[in-house]
C-alpha cells in the first residue's frame, strides 16, 4: 500500500536533519502568518470578503474578461487569448520572434511553469533568464521549484555558492567589487545576493524583452498587478521595450476596491509580510514600447463548470496551505509528482490530469489546517476527500485499501458477525510479536501493535448489565 508520493516521502525522511530544517523553516513562515492574522482585527472578515469577491468574479468571468480586454485595448495594450499551453507557447514565441528577440528576462510566473514555456523558447533558440533570485538559482542548478512562493528555500547556500562560481562567467570580477572586502565566508548570504544582483543587472541591460506574470488583473481599469520582493518585475519591464504579461483567466478581480482587500492580506497570508516589497501596477506600454497580455485558459473554464472543484479557481497561489500542511513540511516539494505541491497542488494536479497525478492524493491526513489558513477559503481538504472517492472509478484505487474497505463494510453491515469478531479479537495478543509485526502489517512500520482487551464494550454491556 503505497504511492509515488509516499515512497518519495519515505526516502526524503531518511535524513532527519534535512526534514527538521524543512519543517521548521516552513512552520516558521506559518507562525509569521499567524502573527499577521492576529494583528488584524478584521482578518476573518477579509477572508470572507476575498472569498466572495473571487466567487463573484469566477462566476461572472466571461463578462469581466470582456471588460478587461476592452480596457486594456483602450490603454494601448495588445491582448491575446490562448486556449491551452501549446497555443500560449506559440503566441509568446510569435511575439518574441517578430521582434527579433534573442534574450528574455522573466519575473516569476507559475503559469509559465504550468505551460513549460522556458523549454519551448530555449528549443527555438531564445535565451530565457529567470530574474527572481530563487528561480534563477533553480534555473542555474536545473532544478524545479519545490514551493510556489519560496521555490528554492530547500537549497543550501553552499550549493548556491558553488553554482554561482561555476556558472557566472565574471564571478571573480563581481566578487572583487564587493565591499566589505575579505576575509569573508565564501557562501555568506549577503555576498551571494550581491553577486546575484550584479549578475542579474547585466541580464536586464542586455535583454530584448521582459516577461511578467500577473497576481491580479483589474477588469475596471485594465491594470495588471504584480507582487515581488526583489523589484525584478520592474527591472524586467524598465529596460527592454517589449513587455509580455502571462495571465491565467482566473486572476481577474472587478475593481480597485477589491484590490484593496487582497492587497491588505495576500502577503500576510503567504509569507507573513505586511505587504510585498514591491506591488507594481502596469497599465500600458512604456513610451516607445509595446505591451502584450496573453490570457490563458488551459483548462480553467472547464473547472468553472465542475461543481465539486470550481473553488480551486479562487486560489491566488500565496502558498499558505503548503506552509501549514504537516505532510508538505515533512515530505517537501519533490515528493509530489505535480509541479505545485501541497494541498492546492494535490487538487490542481488532479484537475490537470487525474491519471497522471493521482499519486499525490494520499498525501493528506485530512487535518483541515489548510482550509483555515486559506485567505480565499478554498475547501482544500474536502476536495482531497472527494478526489479519493473518484480514484476507484478512475481505476487507481489501491487494491489493499479497497479490500480492507470492502471487508470493513461487510463486517460493519452485519452486527452479529461484528460482535463475534470482537469476541475473538483478543486472540491477536497471543500471536508472537514477530508474526504481528511482520512486513505485511503496515501498521507495524511505525507502531508497536495495540493490545486487544479480553472483552469489548459490547460484551461488557451485555454480560455485566451496565
Amino acid at each position: 500500500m503505497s504511492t509515488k508520493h509516499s515512497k518519495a516521502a519515505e526516502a526524503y525522511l531518511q535524513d532527519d536533519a534535512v526534514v527538521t530544517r524543512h519543517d521548521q523553516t516552513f512552520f516558521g513562515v506559518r507562525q509569521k502568518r499567524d502573527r499577521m492574522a492576529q494583528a488584524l482585527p478584521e482578518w476573518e472578515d477579509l477572508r470572507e470578503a476575498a472569498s466572495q469577491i473571487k466567487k463573484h468574479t469566477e462566476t461572472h468571468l466571461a463578462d469581466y474578461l470582456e471588460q478587461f480586454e476592452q480596457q486594456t485595448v483602450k490603454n494601448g495594450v495588445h491582448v491575446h487569448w490562448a486556449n491551452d499551453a501549446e497555443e500560449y507557447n506559440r503566441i509568446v514565441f510569435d511575439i518574441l520572434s517578430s521582434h527579433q528577440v534573442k534574450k528574455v528576462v522573466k519575473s516569476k510566473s507559475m503559469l509559465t511553469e504550468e505551460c513549460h514555456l522556458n523549454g519551448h523558447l530555449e528549443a527555438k533558440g531564445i535565451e530565457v533568464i529567470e530574474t527572481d533570485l530563487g528561480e534563477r538559482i533553480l534555473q542555474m542548478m536545473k532544478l524545479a521549484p519545490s514551493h510556489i512562493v519560496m521555490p528554492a528555500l530547500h537549497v543550501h547556500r553552499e550549493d548556491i555558492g558553488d553554482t554561482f562560481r561555476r556558472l557566472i562567467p565574471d564571478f571573480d570580477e563581481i566578487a572583487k567589487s564587493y565591499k566589505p572586502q575579505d576575509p569573508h565566508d565564501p557562501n555568506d548570504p549577503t555576498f551571494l545576493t550581491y553577486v546575484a544582483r550584479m549578475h542579474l543587472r547585466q541580464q536586464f541591460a542586455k535583454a530584448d524583452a521582459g516577461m511578467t506574470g500577473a497576481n491580479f488583473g483589474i477588469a475596471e481599469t485594465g491594470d495588471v498587478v504584480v507582487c515581488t520582493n526583489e523589484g525584478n518585475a520592474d527591472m524586467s519591464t524598465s529596460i527592454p521595450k517589449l513587455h509580455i504579461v502571462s495571465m491565467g483567466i482566473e486572476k481577474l478581480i472587478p475593481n480597485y476596491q477589491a484590490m484593496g482587500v487582497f492587497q491588505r492580506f495576500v502577503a500576510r497570508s503567504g509569507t507573513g509580510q505586511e505587504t510585498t516589497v514591491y506591488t507594481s501596477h502596469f497599465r500600458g506600454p512604456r513610451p516607445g514600447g509595446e505591451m502584450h497580455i496573453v490570457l490563458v485558459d488551459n483548462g480553467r473554464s472547464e473547472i468553472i463548470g465542475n461543481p465539486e472543484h470550481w473553488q480551486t479557481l479562487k486560489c491566488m497561489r500565496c502558498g499558505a496551505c503548503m506552509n501549514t500542511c504537516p505532510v508538505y513540511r515533512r515530505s517537501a516539494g519533490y515528493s509530489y509528482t505535480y509541479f505545485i505541491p501541497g494541498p492546492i497542488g494535490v487538487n490542481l494536479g488532479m484537475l490537470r490530469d487525474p491519471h497522471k497525478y493521482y499519486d499525490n492524493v494520499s498525501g493528506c491526513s485530512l487535518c483541515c489546517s489548510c482550509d483555515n489558513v486559506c485567505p480565499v477559503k478554498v475547501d482544500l481538504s474536502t476536495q482531497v476527500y472527494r478526489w479519493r472517492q473518484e480514484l476507484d472509478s478512475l481505476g487507481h484505487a489501491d487494491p489493499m485499501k479497497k479490500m480492507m474497505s470492502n471487508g470493513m463494510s461487510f463486517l460493519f453491515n452485519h452486527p452479529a458477525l461484528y460482535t463475534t469478531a470482537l469476541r475473538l479479537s483478543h486472540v491477536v495478543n497471543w500471536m508472537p510479536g514477530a508474526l504481528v509485526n511482520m512486513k505485511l502489517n503496515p501498521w507495524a512500520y511505525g507502531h508497536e501493535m495495540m493490545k486487544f482487551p479480553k472483552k469489548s464494550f459490547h460484551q461488557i454491556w451485555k454480560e455485566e448489565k451496565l
Partner: protein
Amino acid sequence: MRIGLFIPCYVDALYPEVGVSTLRLLRSLGLDVDYPERQTCCGQPMGNAGFEKKAVLLAKKFDELFSPYDYVVAPSASCAAYVRCFHPHLLGSHEAQKQCATSEKTMDLVEFLHDVIKVKSLHARFPHKVSIHNSCHGVRELGLSSPSERNIPKFNKIIDLLKLVDGIEIVEPERPDECCGFGGMFAVEEQAVSARMGLEKVRRHIATGAEYVTGPDSSCLMHMQGVAQKQGLDIKFIHVAQILSAGL
C-alpha cells in the same frame, strides 16, 4: 432527555474502558443513557480511504438506529464529526434521498457536556499533570477549541471541563493543534510521514513534562501510543472521559 450512546467500532474493540467511563460519567450526571446494541461503525474509515459508497448503508442504519434519541453522544470527536459533516451527504446520495435525522444531534462527549449539559462541577479527582491533545476533527470540524489558524477569541472546551477535576495540572504542547499524523488509512498508506508526525507530536507532549496525554479521540491516542512504544518513549495516554470520571 434520552441519550443514545455511540461507542465507535475501534473504541468498542480496543478501548472498552473508554466506553464504560463515558457511560458512568453520563449516568452520574443523572442522564438516561441507552446503548443500541446493533451499532457498529460510522463509516469514516471507508470514506477517508476513498470508498464512501461502502459507508452509505452504514450511515443509513446509523440514522435509523439513533433517530429515536434526543442526543447521540460518542467519546470520539472524529466519528461524531463524520456523522455531523458527512452523513447528510451520504444519505443524500442514497437512492432514498433520505434526510439525515441524526447529524445535528450527534455530539462528541466533550461538546455535549460543555454545550448541552453545561457541566459546572464534577466529583472527579486526577492529581496528575496532563498534556492536551487537540485532535484535528475536534478542533476544525466540531469546534472543541479555537483553531490556531483563525483570528477568533480563544477557547478550549476540553480544558474548560478538565479544570473541574480536582488536583489536575493542565498543559498544552507547542504547536497545540498540529496533526499527530493518524488520519485513518493515511497512517498505513503514508506510513513514513505518519510515523514522523506521530513521533514529533509525542516528543512535544513529553517536553511539557506531563505524565499523561489526554484528548477526546482514542484514534489519535492509539496512534501516538503505538509510536511512543515503538520508540521506547515514556508517557501515558488516557481518554478525557476516563479523567472526567476518575473516582466515580
